[in-house]
């Protein structure tokens, strides 16, 4: 569990650093298209889609412990 958490923390810290680098990059004259926005939106939406699916599955398990329909 602890090793898992350390790996997750390092991965998230790396993402934070990338994000700050991204901010610096946007400071120049880069023109962003709607496609850039859509791609970033898809990345942001993905974990929440998975969270919702998993939460539904867990709630189904609680409401139906035997697994019968």
């Amino acid at each position, binding site marked *: 569990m602890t090793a898992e958490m350390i790996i997750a923390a390092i991965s998230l810290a790396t993402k934070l650093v990338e*994000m700050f680098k991204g901010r610096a990059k*946007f400071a120049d004259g880069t023109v962003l298209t709607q496609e850039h*926005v*859509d791609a970033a*939106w898809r*990345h942001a939406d993905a974990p929440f889609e998975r969270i919702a699916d998993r*939460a539904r599955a867990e709630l189904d398990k609680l409401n139906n412990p035997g697994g019968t329909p």
Partner: protein
Amino acid sequence: MINRRISLAALVILASTFTLALSATSCATLRPNPTDPEIQQTRKLAVQIFKAVEIAGSALETVQTIEIQMHDAGTIDDVTHGTFQTRLLMTAKLVRTALVQIQTATRLPELKNTLQVVIENLTDLQTTYAPKFANTAIGPALAIITASLTVVMSIL
């Protein structure tokens, strides 16, 4: 007779051209100019927000995984597990709706208002559940969410 037909054809062509020109002009008027500085600023901000929300989402996913593992191990009871997963489901739905609004936002005020809703919801989730899961691995993961939210705040 031929001349009349030619004139009629010319009139039809002229009318079609005029209609086409008119529709092209109206399209240009309705569609926002992508190089408009405010649109560019809105897009840049939206991309930064999406990156921060992605990080918060990854952290929240880790929290969910840990909570499920703890429930499976018998450390967390069914009632707490059910309440927490229900809350996660609601949060995910709200955030996903807000992300769509941010994606389609063309002006900064609407972008900021929507972002505020996301931040308030994630912050509330953290303040509600961090004490409940104190002394567990969920604590550090919730702290990562706070860090990413702080970054979002700094963008505002």
